[in-house]
């Protein structure tokens, strides 16, 4: 068959016009739609944040803990989580790379490290959630109007609400009508507007679910690699397809990191 004939019949069937297998193509299309889902979530987050700008907590003041260290270290833990996920993305590429070379030992090594990276990330996320849910030692005051305030300057008649100091009778009235809350859940959030907590649980939870299913897929193909399934099949394309999914999880985290913790 000459080149011109191939070109004319490129969509005529029998060949792969995009030079990618059916499975890989469908994985790409799935990821593209999933990216649209996540961008809708983050867009909704931005919308609500603009609407409730005055009561929105600053992430630097919320996520300040680091394991085994006392004091305040904003950003440090989430930076570590980002590093773990980027690192596991690199080990995944190396696993795919060794798959191309049909090097089973290399695939086993790098795929195993990727699974460990994913599990460490999930553990870190559980730690972050648990700190957010339990909250600070002092807690906060939830006013009758739904606003959040903290006692200021160590006194009992001064409060800080939405960045403004309130003193005297106004403060006493607020304290009298307020209830004490601690930590964050879907109804109350001691750090600020409850929607911040809702979006945090929903978006990082949905991302965490992706990481979890990614780890499950990785474990399944890891077992298949060990049993020599892909060796017999003659190619390691399944590693490549799950790899695409794994990089996507990393990609989403890059955006979650920016819009939840930095901006």
């Amino acid at each position, binding site marked *: 068959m000459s080149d011109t004939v191939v070109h004319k019949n490129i969509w005529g069937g029998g060949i792969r*016009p*995009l030079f990618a297998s059916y499975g890989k193509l469908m994985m790409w299309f799935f990821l593209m739609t999933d990216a649209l889902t996540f961008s809708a979530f983050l867009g909704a987050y931005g919308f609500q944040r603009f609407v409730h700008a005055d009561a929105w907590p600053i992430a630097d003041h919320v996520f300040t803990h680091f394991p085994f260290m006392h004091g305040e270290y904003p950003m440090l833990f989430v930076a570590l989580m*980002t590093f773990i996920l980027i690192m596991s993305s690199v080990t995944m590429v190396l696993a795919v790379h060794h798959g191309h070379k049909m090097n089973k030992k290399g695939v086993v090594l790098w795929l195993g490290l990727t699974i460990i990276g994913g599990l460490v990330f999930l553990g870190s996320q559980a730690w972050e959630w648990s700190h957010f849910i339990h909250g600070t030692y002092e807690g906060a005051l939830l006013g009758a109007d739904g606003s959040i305030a903290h006692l200021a300057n160590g006194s009992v008649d001064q409060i800080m609400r939405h960045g403004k100091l309130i003193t005297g009778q106004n403060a006493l009235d607020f304290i009298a009508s307020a209830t004490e809350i601690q930590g964050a859940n879907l109804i109350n959030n001691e750090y600020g507007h409850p929607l911040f907590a809702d979006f945090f649980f929903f978006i990082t939870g949905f991302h965490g679910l992706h990481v979890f299913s990614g780890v499950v897929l990785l474990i399944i193909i890891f077992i298949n690699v060990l049993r020599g399934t892909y060796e017999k099949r003659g190619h390691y394309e399944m590693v490549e397809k799950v790899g695409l999914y794994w990089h996507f999880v990393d990609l989403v985290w890059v955006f979650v990191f920016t819009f939840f913790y930095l901006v």
Partner: protein
Amino acid sequence: MSENSSTRHIWIVFWILLILTTVEVLLGIYKPSFMLVNYILGVTFLNMTFIILTIIKAYYIVGAFMHLSHEVKLLKMFIVLPMLVLIPYLLFILLVEASFHGAIG
């Protein structure tokens, strides 16, 4: 690409991602004041820097790690164009509506 150069390329991309993330984290911790007072398109210079660095990181993850820059042109278009059209459209609608709430702009 030979075996060695493609492994080298993977590690170069890793270092790019690591350096960009480090820059983001340092900017997030220290928040230079000149970046907070200047605005571009209604966003502070600092936040605009974060968004641009994130998009550069996304380009490297999708292009190098997911290997999209080595696929045929049509496949690249199939994946990138819907996102390039729909995501800015969605953000435009949401943020313009938020401005009608009197919250922005």
